[in-house]
C-alpha cells in the first residue's frame, strides 16, 4: 500500500503505523466513566470505507487521517491531523 502523506508525498506503507478508527473523540474531563470507557474500548471495524489514523513515523512524524476502503485498500483522502505540521501562529 502507498499513502500520500500531505507533507512527504506518496510513501510506502512500511513507513507508517496504523492506529485504527479515527472517529472516537476523547471526552472532556467531566464526561464521566461511561463516555471514557466507550472512547477507550469501543471501535468500529468496518468492512468498507472508514476513517483511520496512520502515523508517519518513518517520515515526518505526522498523524494522518486516512479515508480508506478496508476491503479494497482504495484510499480516498489523506489529511494531516489538526496539530500536525509547522508550529501554530501565535494567537
Amino acid at each position, binding site marked *: *500500500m*502507498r499513502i500520500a502523506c500531505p507533507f512527504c508525498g506518496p510513501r*510506502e506503507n512500511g513507513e507508517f*503505523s496504523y*492506529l485504527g478508527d479515527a472517529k472516537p473523540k*476523547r471526552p472532556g*474531563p467531566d*464526561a*464521566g*466513566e461511561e463516555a*471514557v*470507557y466507550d*472512547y*477507550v*474500548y469501543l471501535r468500529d471495524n468496518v468492512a468498507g470505507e472508514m476513517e483511520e*489514523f496512520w*502515523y508517519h*513515523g518513518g517520515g515526518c*512524524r*505526522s*498523524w494522518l487521517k486516512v479515508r480508506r476502503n478496508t476491503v*479494497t*485498500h*482504495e*484510499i480516498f483522502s489523506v489529511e*494531516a*491531523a*489538526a*496539530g*500536525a505540521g509547522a*508550529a*501554530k501562529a*501565535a*494567537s
Partner: protein
Amino acid sequence: MSAGGQTHRLASGGLIDRGKPLGFSFDGQTMSGYAGDTLASALIANGVKLVGRSFKYHRPRGILTAGSEEPNALVELRSGARREPNTRATTVELYDGLVAASQNRWPSLSFDLLSVNQLAAPIFVAGFYYKTFMWPGALWEKFYEPLIRRAAGLGRAAPESDPDHYEKAWAHCDVLVAGGGPAGLAAALAAGRAGARVILCEEDATLGGRLLSDGGTIDSMPAADWVARAVEELGAMPDVRIMTRTTVTSAFDHGTHAALERVNDHVPVPPEHQPRQRLWRIVAKRTVVAAGALERPVVFGGNDVPGVMLASAVRTYINRYAAAPAKRLALFTNNDDGWKTVDAALASGLTIAGVVDARAEVSAGQRALASKHGFAVLNGVVDHVDGGKAGTGKIAVALAGGATATLEADGLAVSGGWNPSVGLTSQHRGRPKWRDDIAAFVPDGGPVGMVAAGSANGVFSLAGCLKEGHAAGAAAAADLGFGNSAGAAPSSDDDATYALKPVWHVKGKKKAFVDFQNDVTASDVALAALEGFQSVEHLKRYTTLGMATDQGKTSNTQGLAIMAELTGRSIPETGTTIYRPPYVPVAIGALAGHHRDENFHSVRLTPSHHWAAEQGAVFVDTGLWKRAQWYPKKGEKDWLESVTREVKAVRSGVGFCDVSTLGKIDVHGPDAGAFLDRVYINTFSSLAVGKARYGLMLREDGIVYDDGTTSRLAEDHYFLTTTTAKAGPVMQHLEFCRQILFPELDVQLASVSDQWAQFSIAGPKVRDLLKEIVDPSEDLSNEGFPFMAVREVLLRGGVKARLFRISFSGEMAFEISVPARFGDALVRKLMTAGEKFGVTPYGTEALGVMRVEKGHVAGPELNGMTTAADLGLGKMMSTKKDFIGRVMAGREALVAPDRMVVVGIKPVDQSRRLRSGAHIIKKGEVPSPDTDGGYVTSVCFSPTFDQWLGLGLVTHGRERIGEIAVAHDPLRGEDYEVELCNPVFYDPEGGRQRG
C-alpha cells in the same frame, strides 16, 4: 546412463552459439551443450529423457515444458554450499562447469527402490495423509512423518549457509510491462514513444517470448529482426529500462509490484560484490501484463511417461535450441496451433509418426502435408501411452468411430489448448472469467491500473497480440497525460483465429495424471468428488492438486474440468482457487536480501561503545541497542564477580554508566508545561526552571505506560526522558496527544535521543571526579547544585554540557550530557581523570542490582498490567487536573484493595538464591491458582547486603510487610521461605543521594 554425446542435437539452426561449447554434468555424467542452451535443452540434445522421479510414486519423469511452469524437471543445481534444490531445468541457463543432480530417488535415478510405492498406490490416494498412519498416534512424530518425508519429497537444501548474497532494490515508473514477447514489446514501444517512463521485465534472458520459438513475420521482416529493431528503439529511449531474467511475481496495492531478477544464476559464482539475485519492488502508475499463455496437457493413461511433452515445448526445443526431443514424433492435439510442431519437426528433418486430432475436420493443407510426408491423421484421442524411463513406447489411439489404432514414436507432443497467464491479474482476489470459445479463463479486470494484453488476455494470433499490446501501452501513457505519438502498431499477417475442441480427460484403466508435480491422478479427483470435497479449494487441499513449486500451472484447468464433469456443473460454476503471489517461487534468500546474520536488523551503538569494546565489555542486546552489560577484569571467574566489584566500587567510591539509550525528547513552546500536565499523572507546569522531576505516564486505560525524569531547562523548554524500550512508542504517543488530542496547545516535540551522550556518574566521590571534568567556576556543592537540580555547565576545554543531579542507584549521583560527538572523548576523560579515585565503569547488570537495592521499579514491574498505586506511586496522581488515563485508572478493579503491589522480598535463609518467577504462597497453604499470592518480578545478588534480594508483586503486599511466606517455584522444583519487606532496601531515608 552413458554420455553418448549430443545425439539429439540438430545439425543446424537454433539460437545457440555453436562456437561456444559448454561442459556440464548431470548425476555425475559429463555432457556438453552450447551457449544459449538451458539445462533442459542441453539434456534433450544429449538424448536424456529421464530427469526425475515423481513425488509420491517415484515414477520416471521427463521434461514436460520449456518454461517456468515446469512440474517435472526439478533438479538440484550446483554443489556444496551453493546447492539449490527444486530448480527447474527448463529455466536454468547452461554455463560451463554446471553441476546438476536429479532429486527424490534412491539409490539412483535409473534404479529407484522407492518406485515400489507404485505397488502401494491404493494407500497413496487423495487425502492419504488424513486416512493412513493414524494409529497408534504416538508413532506419528517419530516414525510415520520422517518416513513419509523421506519417501515423498523434493530436493535437499544445502547443509551450509549460502555464501552468496542477495539484495533488494526499488524502482519507479509510469508504465510497467510484464513480459517481453510481441505484446509486451509493442506495449513498451507505444508507452515509451508517448513519453512515459517504462520498465519492461522479461523472465527469459532474451526478449521475444514465443517469437523465439515460433518465428513469424512482423512489419514485413522476420520476427527476430523486428525484435532486434524494437530493442534498439527502446534502448535509445532515455526513460525506458529493459530488465531481462526478471519475473514480475506479485502485484500489491497501489501499483507496487515484486519482481525477481536472477542477476547471476547463469554463472557458477557471482562476480565479486554482485548479488546472485535481486528482489525488486517496482512502483508503477499503470501495468500492462503481457505474460503470455501456457499450453496445457491432456489427462490420459501414461501421460507422464518421459517423452510426452507439450507441443509448444517440442517446438521451442527444435526451433530455439536445435535439440530434438524425439526423432520420430507423434502429435496429439485439439487445435491448429499444435500442428505448428509438425511443421517445425518436418523442417528439421524429423519424422512424424502420426497426428491424433480430436477435431473431426482438419484443413486441406494439413491433409496435404500428411500425405506428402506419409503420416496418418487420426480423428480421435490418445487412449494411453506405454513406456517408462527409456521413453514412450506404443501410443494407443481411440478413434472417433470406436475403433483403435496404434502409433510407434519415441516422443509424443501434446496440445490441449492454451491458458492465458491470469496469475498477476488475479492476485487481488479477482476471479478470472471463463471464455467458452477458447475454453480457458481470461482476466476479468484486475488490480487498479493493471490491464492484460495479448495472449495473457486470450488473444492468440500474432497480429492480435501486437495490436492489443500497442493499444494497451498507448492507452496507459495517454491516461497518464503523455501526449507524444505512440507511433503505428506493429503489424503481422498472422491473424488466424484460434479454435479448439476441448479435451480434458480420456478415461481409461491406466494412471492418468492431472498434476504431475504432486502425483494427483484423475481417480484422485474422482475420489475427492465422491467424498464430498467438491469445492475447488477443498479439492486442492484434499488432493494437493495445484500445490508446490508450479502451483498447478499445467494442471489446474484439467482438474477443474474433471471435477465439473463429475459434479454436473460447468467449469465456471466450479470456479478457480484463489491466486496468490508470488507467480513463481522466490528463494528465502532473495526475500531476506542483506538482512541476515549480523545484518538481520540494524544495530545502534552507544557513544561509548568503541571505548567499551576496547575494555572488553560484555554487551547485551536491548532492542536495537548494544549496551555494556559488565566489564570483566582479568582473573574474574564469572559475571557475578565482575558485577559485584562494580557495585561495590560505586557504593564506596565512584563509577559511571552510559545511559544514552534512554529516549530523549525536547518539548518546546509556551504550552509545554500544560502539555506535560496532560500526559503525566503528576504536574510539570509547576516545576521550577533548573529542576528535574520523576514522571509517570499512563495509557488511556489507566495502566502504567512509561516513566522517566523530565527537566525544565527554560520557561518554554522541557527535556523529557523515557525508558530505553519505550523511546519510539512514547514519541509516537506524545505526537498523537499533541496533534490529535490537544491540537490547541502550542507545543512542539523533537526526538533528541541520538543527539546526546549521557552518562550517570555515581558514588560518594562523584564530586571529586566531576571537579576534574567541569570548569572550576561551576559550583557543585549541595547548596550550589542541590538534589534534582539541572543546569548547563562549562567543561574544562570549553564544551558545554548539561548536568542533572538525579540518582537511580541511590548514591550521590549526577547525569552528564554532552553532544553525542563528544561522548567518546568524555568517557576517556572520565577514566583518566578518575584514575586516582578508582573510577569504575559499570554496566547494565550493576545498574540493575543497584536499582533493586534501591527499590526502583523497571521493566519487570512496568509490565502493562500494573497501576501507579500497584507500583507504590499512587500518591503521584494529581487530583487537580485531567491527564491521560485518569478516568480509567479509577475503575473499581484498578483500585481494588486485593491488587498485587510491589514489595521487597528476601530469602529467610540468607545463603539462598532468589529466583524471578517464583510464586508467593501464604505459609501453610497448598500452592494452587486459588492460593497464589503474587510472584517475584526482579532479583539480584546484592553485594551491599551480601544476599539475594528481589522485588515482587504481592496481593495485599503493603499490609504484609514483615510476613514470612513461601516462594513456590514449580518450574525449578523449589520451595523456600521468604520475608516480605519494604522494597527500598538501601538507604530508605535517601540521605546518600541528597547528600
